[in-house]
């Protein structure tokens, strides 16, 4: 048993290594950090530029294979190299990861849970007003790109602030400077963080709700007329109870597969959110790094993203196993 799990993990590890290497090589070939010096006035002498680039393992005059070797050796020791500014990538990576996770997780959790509930509810009320409203809403939301949604919410929040005559909603950055040192101390700091988190959370939650409710509705419609729901009713359960206890529980299983898919969706959404709300997370960093030709940062973020996608895949497999006894006991051939 453990051997099979190991083989699976090994396959994932190979995929992650291949993906990260590919990303590194691509970035190393395509990006041009040297051009950053072009618009420096005065342009530093060539030798200085070379020395600086070599120190960062970014010198395009070093053979690609050598650069890759240096980088890979570092990565094997858990060191992703240095950023353009010369700071270690690792430290910044973890800091930025923290920011991104803080930004996305409330919206993701809230959105998927609400989405599943709304989808199931819409399916139960199929064809009625509630269903039409939810279906139409999710349709419309799915058609609104995250960056448009974020800006729309900001406009609404600005109008609200104006109307109330106070600065209730905030949407730039993670905190307001000095909030934690106000009259309410740490509590004020927390409230300030919550205030800044509100709009990004709503943005992410809305996209997640649109996605999950749509799929959960479809899955729930599948079991609405399932034989086992009918059996549960034949035992004496009320229609709605039968649907919740037997239908929803079963309809959740295929959702685990969507979970892995939606992860990529979420990460990209987060990237746009960081951009729109001015959070200094991974997404913003990646955009900067690509513009600046910061190969080490790009490779590190790619590695993390690849691991994230694979971890989501693994998590969805495990979740599937937890929810579905047919997988757990391994009897489904």
């Amino acid at each position: 048993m453990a051997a099979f799990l190991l083989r699976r993990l090994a396959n994932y590890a190979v995929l992650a290594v291949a993906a990260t290497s590919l990303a590194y090589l691509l970035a190393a070939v395509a990006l041009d950090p040297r051009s950053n010096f072009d618009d420096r006035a005065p342009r530093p002498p060539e030798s200085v530029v070379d020395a600086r680039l070599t120190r960062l393992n970014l010198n395009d005059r070093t053979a690609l294979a050598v650069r890759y070797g240096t980088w890979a050796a570092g990565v094997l020791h858990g060191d992703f190299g240095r950023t353009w500014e010369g700071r270690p990538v690792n430290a910044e990576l973890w800091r930025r990861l923290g920011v991104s996770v803080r930004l996305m997780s409330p919206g993701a959790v809230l959105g998927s849970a609400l989405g599943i509930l709304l989808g199931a509810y819409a399916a139960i009320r199929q064809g009625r007003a509630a269903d039409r409203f939810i279906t139409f809403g999710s349709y419309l939301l799915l058609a609104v790109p995250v960056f448009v949604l974020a800006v729309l919410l900001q406009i609404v929040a600005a109008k609200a602030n104006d109307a109330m005559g106070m600065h209730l909603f905030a949407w730039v950055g993670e905190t307001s400077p000095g909030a934690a040192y106000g009259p309410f101390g740490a509590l004020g700091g927390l409230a300030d963080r919550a205030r800044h988190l509100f709009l990004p959370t709503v943005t992410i939650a809305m996209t997640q709700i649109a996605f999950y409710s749509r799929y959960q509705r479809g899955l729930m419609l599948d079991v609405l007329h399932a034989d086992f729901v009918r059996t549960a009713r034949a035992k004496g359960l009320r229609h709605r109870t039968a649907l919740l206890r037997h239908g929803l529980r079963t309809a959740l299983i295929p959702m685990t597969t969507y979970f892995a898919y939606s992860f990529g969706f979420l990460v990209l959404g987060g990237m746009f959110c960081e951009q729109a709300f001015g959070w200094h997370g991974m997404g913003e960093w990646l955009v900067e790094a690509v513009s600046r030709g910061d190969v080490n940062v790009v490779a590190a973020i790619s590695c993390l993203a690849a691991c994230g996608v694979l971890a989501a895949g693994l998590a969805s497999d495990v979740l599937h196993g937890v929810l579905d006894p047919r997988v757990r006991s391994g009897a489904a051939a």
Partner: protein
Amino acid sequence: MTLLVVRDLTVRYAPGVPAVRGVGFDVGAGEVLGVVGESGSGKTALALAMVGLLPPDARVTGSVRLRGEELVGRSDAELSRIRGRDLAMVFQDPLSALTPVHPVGDQIAEAVRIHSGATWPAARARAVELLDLVGIPGAARRARACPHEFSGGMRQRVMIAMAIANDPVAIVADEPTTALDVTVQAQVLDVLKAAKEATGAAIVLITHDLGVVAGFADRIMVMHAGRAVESGPVEEVYRRPRMPYTIGLLQSLPRMGAAGAARPAPVDGASPEAPAAGGGCAFRPRCPVAVDACGGRDPEPVLVGPSGHTAACVNTEATADPDAVFPLPDAVPRPARPPRRERPVVLEVDGLVRHHPLYRGTLLRRRAGTVHAVDGIGFDVREAETLALVGESGCGKTTALMEILRLARPQRGSVAVLGQDTAALRPARRKALRRDVQVVFQDPFTSLDPRMRVADIIAEPFAAHGLRAPRGRVRELLDLVGLEPAHAGRYPHGLSGGQRQRVGIARALALEPRLLLLDEPVAALDVSVQAGVMDLLEGLRNRLGIAYLFVAHDLAVVHRIADRVAVMYMGRIVEIGSVDEVYGRPAHPYTRALLDAVPLPDPRLERRRRRVPLRGDLPDPTAPPAGCRFRSRCPRYAALGAVDARRCEEHDPMPRPMSTDRESDQWAACHHPLAEAGAGS
């Protein structure tokens, strides 16, 4: 005491097509009413209407009274207090009817808790009791298993346990044994019988199988196009059916007990989906004794015999003699051919093996073992002869057929078609040989490309071989299989099941093959349609001299069409021989058990039969028992002394002739065959 009274029950789906029209009946305590009908007759809608589980767009009128309490028109909340407590239901497909994610014990316990308010531990204890009652070995342990860990028969036992959890007043069972093999069906019917005795419930048994009703029901109600066309005591209706449709159903059944000569009578056409509005008797278009008065309005049931035997027919004078309505056709004379031994061999199979790896688990896919799907079988088929491969699901009969069809080198053993060893064929030769070997599949709904017209489907074999279909050949083929020229332009979904199967047969015959492989060709069809397709196959064989390899699970069908029969169990042929010998004097205990388990559509014969039901389920196909594979279920092995039993445990029996008679070719793979005493007679 009459417990369940149904009066004038009508079910109408949204567009206004009535699925059930004015049906009424009574069922008393401990009484079983068998409701019989073909697909589309409205019998399932009737069942769901009684328990109030029809989809919301259905409209129900009339009355269903349980112990005097009216059920029609009650709210879901009120009905849910009655359902599962006083009125229980057993559904057809026990795999989809049980929630896949909850342990079966909990599912039964839930039924207990809903109505009694028992605590979970108490309800679970009761669930184990119930599982024990329906004969699930190791009930306490198995209660924690999920539905997919049970076999079909065991799942149906779970369903029955759930139904009787609260000692119901009445049980409605909708096709409870349809998805099961005959030997398992017999077991489940026994459980249902025991359940009836334990609860004293009134049972409504809905089925298409007249044999099941004959053995199990006290009264019968025949449904056609949503109406009850005939009802009465089982024996009376089977002996003196008076409604032409009932007569047709009974006459169209292949019977194993009957003398071999008579063939079942085909009833033309399919059950109409919706009866013509205000058009009188719905059976009129297919009825041989229809008169003008049939066209007026739906005929009312009239008393035609004792004990409330009624038939809804205006022309009951004409139906006193069933044979006059649907005469049993005479046996088609088989053209004189040289004796079997002198005819050329069309197909020769020797030591054929097909094993395939079994993987388990979706998360952690691993090889769990090898399924010995076909494990060394041998037989031959000669010109103009039909060999039937019979056995229960999973015995390897279809795998064997597919292996032959591949015309490639088998894993082990050899297949020779028309004298050519398939292992040695070059691709061009193999393609040429395909002209002589054709196939008809089981499911006429999936074996025809939905995007092709009938004419193109029938002409495809020509195109596949780079030929042009000769002019008029498609018409000729349509005619040959009893279809109209107008059918050529239709798509498969515009045809009935029987018509589709005829198209499949026409396609197979297009290139005039010499060997036709038939994989359960009538299993998906209603009985009255089956008879017509069987007639067609029989006639074609006699006229064209084609050899058939006929794979089937239905022993009655096989009895009718086959010359020789091979009985398979777990990848092996356990018995092979001429139909008369194998059916008349089965040598292998498994053959005996199979024949015993087939319910006979005759109440008197069926109830007189003494049968030893097979125990248990099929063993794990990856780990067959050592020695004889049938040992674990064999009633004969169970009765053997230690010395004789050891042979079964240690030696895998090989097929050997059962008789020294030169004319006999009955072989069986058994150390202690049943009929050996009679050898040489």
